C-alpha cells in the first residue's frame, strides 16, 4: 500500500515537472481510444439522423443562404489574396519569418467529457495525420488552443481558457502586448501583468502576436470584456471573452505554420 502511494506521488510529481511521461500517456491512450469513440459515436449518430430528416424546405433555404455567404466570402478572399501576397512580399523584404498561411487540416471533436477541473478536448486525429505537440488549433472564429498530447488515434487539445494555458496577444488598436492566461472557472481569459496605466479599453480586439513561437501571428483571440483598475494592486485585472466558440464548436482547424521554427518547438 505504502509502495503504491509513493509510486503515485512520484508519478504525479514526474508528470507535473517532466515531459518524459507524455510518451507513456500516449501509449496508454491507444487501448483506451475505442472507449472514447464508443461514447462519442451515438451522439454523432443522433446528430446525423437529425440532419437526414430535416425538411426539404429548410435544406433549400440553407443552401441559398450558404451560396450567398460563399459569394460574399469569395469577394473578400480576392481582396485578401492580393493583400496577403503583398504582405508576404513586404515581410520577406524585411526578412521577417512570420509569414501568413500554412497547411490546414479539419478535425472533429469527440463528444467526450473530461474532468471538470480541466478545459481540454479530444480530437479524432493523431500521429497518423502527423499532428505534433504544440500545434495551434483554431475554429472559425479564433484561436481555440494547442495540442498537448498526440496519440495514434486521438489527440488532446488544451483550450485557451484552461488555467495552464497562456497565449501571447496584442491589442489590434495600438499593438500593446500582453499574455492571456485561462481562468478555468469563469471559462474566460485574463490578461496578466498589465500595468494600470496601459491603454487598453473595454471592447478592444486581441489577436495573437506571434511572439513565443507557438501560435501563428494575427488570429483573433478575444475581446476585452471588463477592466478592473484597483489602485491598491500593481496590475489591472482585465477579463477577456474568447473569440473562439470554445464550448460550441464541433469542427476545428489544425494548422501547420509555414514557419519552420514553429514546427519544432524545441529548436
Amino acid at each position, binding site marked *: 500500500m505504502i509502495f*503504491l502511494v509513493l*509510486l503515485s506521488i512520484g508519478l504525479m510529481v514526474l*508528470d*507535473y515537472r517532466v515531459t518524459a511521461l507524455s510518451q507513456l500517456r500516449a501509449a*496508454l491512450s491507444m487501448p483506451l481510444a475505442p472507449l472514447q469513440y464508443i461514447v462519442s459515436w451515438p451522439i454523432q449518430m443522433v446528430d446525423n439522423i437529425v440532419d437526414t430528416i430535416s425538411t426539404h424546405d429548410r435544406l433549400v433555404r440553407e443552401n441559398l443562404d450558404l451560396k450567398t455567404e460563399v459569394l460574399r466570402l469569395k469577394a473578400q478572399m480576392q481582396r485578401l489574396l492580393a493583400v496577403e501576397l503583398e504582405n508576404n512580399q513586404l515581410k520577406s523584404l524585411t526578412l521577417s519569418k512570420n509569414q501568413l498561411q500554412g497547411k490546414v487540416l479539419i478535425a472533429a471533436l469527440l463528444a467526450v467529457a473530461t474532468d*471538470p477541473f480541466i478545459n*481540454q478536448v479530444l480530437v479524432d486525429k493523431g500521429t497518423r495525420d502527423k499532428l505534433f505537440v504544440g500545434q495551434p488549433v483554431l475554429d472559425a472564429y479564433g484561436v481555440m488552443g494547442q495540442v498537448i498530447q498526440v496519440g495514434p488515434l486521438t489527440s488532446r487539445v488544451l483550450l485557451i481558457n484552461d488555467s495552464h494555458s497562456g497565449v501571447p496577444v496584442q491589442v489590434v488598436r495600438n499593438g500593446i502586448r500582453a499574455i492571456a492566461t485561462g481562468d478555468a472557472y469563469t471559462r474566460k481569459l485574463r490578461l496578466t501583468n498589465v500595468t494600470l496605466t496601459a491603454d487598453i479599453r473595454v471592447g478592444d480586439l486581441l489577436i495573437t502576436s506571434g511572439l513565443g513561437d507557438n501560435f501563428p501571428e494575427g488570429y483573433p483571440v478575444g475581446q476585452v470584456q471588463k477592466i478592473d483598475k484597483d489602485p491598491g494592486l500593481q496590475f489591472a485585472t482585465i477579463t477577456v471573452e474568447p473569440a473562439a466558440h470554445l464550448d460550441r464548436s464541433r469542427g476545428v482547424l489544425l494548422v501547420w505554420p509555414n514557419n519552420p521554427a514553429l514546427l519544432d518547438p524545441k529548436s
Partner: protein
Amino acid sequence: MNYPRNNWIIPGTFVVAFILTLLPMPAWALWLRPSWVLMVLIFWAMAEPETINVGIAWIIGIFLDVLEGTLLGEHALALSLVVYLVVRMYTRLRMFPLIQQGFSIFFLVLLYQFILFCTQGFIGNSPNSWLYWSSSLTSMLLWPWVYSIMRGRTDVKIV
C-alpha cells in the same frame, strides 16, 4: 467465494463505468456526476476482496487519469487508498443494511474527492465551487440501485 462465474463480468462492469464517466453531461449537471468507477470498485472490493485488491484499483486509476486527462497518478492514489479501507472492513460493510451502506459510501467518496481536491490544490486549480462535493451525495443516493443491479446481474452472493 468459489462459484462458477463469467470471467468477463468484472472487466465488463469497469468498461460500463468508464463509459458512464466519459458520457457528456449538460453544464448544470457537471458537478453532479457520481463517481461511477469508484462505486464499481467498492462493490467488487466488497464482493471479492481477494481478486480486486489495491493494485487493481491503482491500475484502474491510471486508466482513469489517462481518460480524463488529469495528472498521472492522481486518481490512482485516491482509488487505491479508498479500496485499501474497503478491503480492511469489507466484512462489516457486507453486514450493513443498504441505507447504512449508503452512508459509508458517502464518506468513502468524500475521502476520494478530498484526495483529488488536495492534489488539484497542489497544482493550483482547486475548484472554488461548493458544488464540487455534491458528487458524493449523488453517489450515495445511487448506491442502493447500483448495488442491487450489480448483485442481480452478476450473481454475486454477498451476505
